């Protein structure tokens, strides 16, 4: 099949940031920081343009509503583990990868642009753009991965870029700690992913002979490999694999999927692996916007969606996805109610929204795949409004030099563009018609309801209300009322290079909901879900409005009501404010258990027992030597005794040999 130019050369999309990364990192950065920013940004811009063209070409090829094939227009052999177990690197083009490419390049391009202004004058300006490019490349590589190993590879790379960017201010201990935490927690989750890959690889390879002939290889493409998603997602494989029992009544497929999901949960910060995300806000704000709101954190969702047929084949895994997602959304929303740091509130809101997306996947079925679409849709819209929120918050922080919302206030007049775009985003996330969030959230709620997950539906509904409440809380506190601190008084609007992305994202957040998403992205046969389901939309909107109202009641004007309410909840409030002490629990586990109960005893054991064993053998030989040397008494007659005794013993031994 003849593809369009961009489809055929889709590898350019991840390659551009890579080339730019190498160029900027090795050559441009040392020479000129300014050009580093420009080159980095334009490379992403170009990639974004290519991504749009790709989308256009693709949906020209497979018009909306039709069955859309996944294409692998380019691939090459990279790692040959053994005969029949080869990892190809390549580019997979299918609806969700295109959506993600569009989102990633768009948000990344805008963040790059924004950063030119935001990071202006910072030390490490060039380094920053190098990292951003690296991240963008890795994320795009992840998105286009045609097999699970490439996914894992890029998965790790985004982890590292995230690590580097969170710890960008490396002389700030809190940033260093946060970056480590982010990396290690996600790494821990990746362990599950990796084991999942091992399990899939092992049985994938084992079943390949019997299953693969059913899967025709496309002409011209590299032969199908056990790691390929196309193989892993194929019903033939899943049928064979799903029939192998593991333990506790779980099928091996469920075990593998749960393991893979652990990785996804780590990246997407599902409870209880969520703890790194709020801390990750130590990085520069644009980074939070790009990585920790719009793109990287949705990689988990993307992975789950990518392997959706496999998850769907294992009901247990999918149930776990649904309930963990639902719980996380509630849990994070509750915490978000009490936080004072603007970025942290946004971080918890991200958590909550990621929970939504996961839940949407979890409530979906192969046959009834509305949730799948909804999840991707929400991913799509959320990327825009959450990036916007972060960038807006970044502009505010840039202006007032603090993250504490109680140090802000009254910024609406000083920063009109920021204020307006922030409001749009807040409305979008709260799910108010006609902003983007309304549509996607509506679809998620609908999916939950139709999937007969009633509890989750009500949870989601409640969370929608909470979301509106806390988002408006920060909106009110930040932009309304009087200046509360010195910084806020002198705040002024950000330069154009920063506000331009805000405005673009504002527009996107406002209109993205009208994209007929379900036409393009669906699993199996397209499920018609046109229009608005009022059974869902009405309660959702009501919940949102209730949240906004309550928020206005507490925070729109300066009053003691909020403080009173906090006092009323007393201990419960403190527990929530301390994020349910999950961090402390982790700290206990790492410090007390891993460091003090495992590492320290092992270090001690090594120094004293193992090493002691070696020293002991040395000591015993020396002691044996000094003890034996005492035989040398200097008395010749004693020596003679030994001689005579030796002869007798010798005689006895010879005699013994012969008897």
């Amino acid at each position, binding site marked *: 099949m003849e593809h369009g130019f961009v489809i055929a050369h889709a590898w350019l999309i991840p390659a551009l940031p890579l080339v730019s990364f190498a160029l900027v990192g090795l050559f441009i950065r040392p020479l000129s920081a300014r050009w580093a920013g420009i080159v980095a940004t334009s490379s992403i811009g170009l990639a974004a343009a290519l991504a749009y063209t790709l989308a256009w070409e693709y949906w020209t090829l497979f018009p909306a509503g039709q069955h859309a094939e996944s294409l692998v227009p380019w691939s090459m052999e990279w790692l040959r*583990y053994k005969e029949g177990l080869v990892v190809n690197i390549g580019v997979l083009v299918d609806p969700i990868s295109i959506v993600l490419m569009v989102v990633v390049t768009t948000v990344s391009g805008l963040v790059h642009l924004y950063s030119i202004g935001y990071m202006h004058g910072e030390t490490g300006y060039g380094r920053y753009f190098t990292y951003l490019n690296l991240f963008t490349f890795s994320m795009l590589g992840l998105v286009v991965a045609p097999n699970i190993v490439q996914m894992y590879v890029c998965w*790790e*790379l985004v982890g*590292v870029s995230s690590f580097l960017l969170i710890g960008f201010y490396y002389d700030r201990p809190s940033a260093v700690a946060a970056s*480590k935490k982010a990396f290690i927690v996600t790494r821990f989750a990746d362990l599950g992913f*990796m084991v999942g890959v091992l399990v899939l690889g*092992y049985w994938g390879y084992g079943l390949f002979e019997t299953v693969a002939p059913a899967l025709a290889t496309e002409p011209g493409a590299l032969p199908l490999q056990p790691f390929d998603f196309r193989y892993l997602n194929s019903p033939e494989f899943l049928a064979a694999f799903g029939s192998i029992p593991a333990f506790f009544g779980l099928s091996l497929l469920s075990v593998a999927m749960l393991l893979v999901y652990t990785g996804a949960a780590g990246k997407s910060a599902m409870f209880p692996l969520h703890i790194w995300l709020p801390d990750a806000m130590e990085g520069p704000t644009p980074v939070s916007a790009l990585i920790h709101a719009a793109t990287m954190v949705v990689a988990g969702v993307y992975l789950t969606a990518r392997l959706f047929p496999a998850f769907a084949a294992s009901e247990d895994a999918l149930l776990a996805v649904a309930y963990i997602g639902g719980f996380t959304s509630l849990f994070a929303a509750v915490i978000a109610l009490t936080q004072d740091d603007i970025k942290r509130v946004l971080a918890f809101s991200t958590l909550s929204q990621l929970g939504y997306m996961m839940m949407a996947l979890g409530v979906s079925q192969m046959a009834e795949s509305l949730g799948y679409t909804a999840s991707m849709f929400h991913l799509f819209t959320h990327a825009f409004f959450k990036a916007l929120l972060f960038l807006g918050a970044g502009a505010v922080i840039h202006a007032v030099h603090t993250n504490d919302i109680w140090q802000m206030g009254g910024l609406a007049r000083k920063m009109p563009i920021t204020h307006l775009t922030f409001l749009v985003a807040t409305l979008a996330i709260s799910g108010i018609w006609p902003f983007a969030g309304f549509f996607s959230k509506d679809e998620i709620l609908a999916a939950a309801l139709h999937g007969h997950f009633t509890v989750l539906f009500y949870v989601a509904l409640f969370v929608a209300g909470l979301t509106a409440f806390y988002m408006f809380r920060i909106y009110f506190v930040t932009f309304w009322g009087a200046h509360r601190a010195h910084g806020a008084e002198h705040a002024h609007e950000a330069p154009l290079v920063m506000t331009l992305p805000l405005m673009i994202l504002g527009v996107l957040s406002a209109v993205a909901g009208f994209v007929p998403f379900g036409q393009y992205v669906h699993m199996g046969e397209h499920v018609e879900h046109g229009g608005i389901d009022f059974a869902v939309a009405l309660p959702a909107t009501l919940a949102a409005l209730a949240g906004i109202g309550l928020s206005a009641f507490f925070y729109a004007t300066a009053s003691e009501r909020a403080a009173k309410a906090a006092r009323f909840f007393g201990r419960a409030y403190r527990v929530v404010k301390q994020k349910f002490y999950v961090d402390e629990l982790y700290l206990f586990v790492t410090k007390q258990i891993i460091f003090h109960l495992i590492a320290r005893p092992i*270090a001690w054991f090594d120094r004293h027992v193992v090493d002691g064993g070696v020293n002991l053998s040395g000591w015993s030989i020396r002691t044996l030597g000094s003890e034996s040397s005492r035989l040398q008494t200097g008395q010749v007659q004693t020596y003679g005794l030994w001689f005579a005794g030796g002869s007798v013993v010798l005689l006895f031994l010879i005699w013994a040999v012969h008897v």
Partner: protein
Amino acid sequence: MGLVSWLIAVPFLTMLGVVATPANRSHWIRWISAVGCGIQLALTALLTWRYWIVASADFEAMNTATLTQLHFVERVPWFESLGIQYFVGVDGISVAMVILTSIIIFTGVLASWYVDIRTKEFFSLLLLLVTGVFGVFLSFDLFLFFMFYELAVLPMYLLIGVWGTGPKEYSAMKLTLMLLAGSAFVLVGFFALYHASGLHTFDLQQLAQADYPRALQRWVFPMIFVGFGVIGALYPLHTWSPDGHSSAPTAVSMLHAGVLMKLGGYGALRIAVYLLPEGAKMWGLFFMALATINILYGSFGAIMQRDLKYFTAYSSVSHCGFVLFGVAALNIMAFKGAVLQMFSHGIMTGLFFGLIGMVYGRTHTRIIPEMGGLGKVMPWLATSFYIAGLASLGLPGLSGFVAETHVFLGGFFGNEWASPWATGTLTLIATMSIVVTAVYVLRGLALVFQGPITNEHFEHLDDAKLPERLSTGLLLATLFFVGLMPWFFIQLTESSLMPLLNRLHEVPVVASLH
């Protein structure tokens, strides 16, 4: 004299050149060493290229062969009555190891550019040591192998004892004695094979064609494996490594962790598994279990270390565990993983120790808590350190990932002589190390390079100088090369590893002995 002999001769001749230079001309000595190692590097490139041309013809044939195909073979009878000969040659594994060694010694010489105490002795010993290492990787006669093996170990004593730091005498003695005690076991194994084969030869290729009774393999295999395991830091015989590495001077740590520890894995693969397939089948699981302990134990041990070198040494214990794990797992992926890990760890840890030396040369401390914020004043070193650290935690794109996934997949796929549940469980336990590695690497590096500068004395330190940049740059490039283009090494080693695997499946046939 053929190419392979030159590879052994060049370091030796360089050593002679150094010896002939007056001791007070330390600058000449450095240049002679650097040029000699440069020539060696060039020769290595030539070897690689020629090997590729010559060997690629029979890559296919090796898939079913049970004897590894040697190239550029040179044979000279030596002690004929005992069947001892000078027998050198290369196969893919050797080529990979030679590349590693050439790179490490070249960078090691650059890293020791500023050694100014007893320079002449230092470089001569270093070159003598590396002569031994090349000899081991290139010889295919057990006598010759053993000879070079000990030659590679012994200069270590003086190198650590004279130029080391800390409890250097103790460390040097412990290292030397433990390694040679290990070689004692190897020797016992060699003799057992020699006599059991009845061939009156130490020729590895011929010994490989002999049929050893199972009872013999049962005890000889662990002998040889443990003997090599000592230098490969097999738990619990690894304890020479932290002390030795931490006391050694920079280039010696580099060589030692980078190359010498590989002799263990190399020997275990080349001799223990190659000659004793039955033994390998019997003991594979046991040594896999030990190597698993290695992997986790080393990484947990590293967490609590205060000294950068101890820290790296424990991480080496962990990483060498992967090598032994791969060797013991007995399948092609694991074997490849083991060789790749040897290469990767060699480069990575060489880089680590080189960098530690450079940092130490500036700060005069290696105690992690005493440092902090160094990234600000020495960005080159910090970046290199981070890349090495990331390689060590198995980041894709760097060499560690390729090696580790090979090993993990290999372990997980297991083999037909061990319960799949056992190998699978061990692999799962071993995979946990990737988290622990992340913990200690990031924690350690963060304490050294990140955060505010803790000591105002550090404010004025300088970044890497040219020789240092050259050496780190070369090592970094290698890390990336292996990580990004793994197929080169995979292709290189796979054809030579297949015979090892095939031997496990077939009872070796005593063919006509030529």
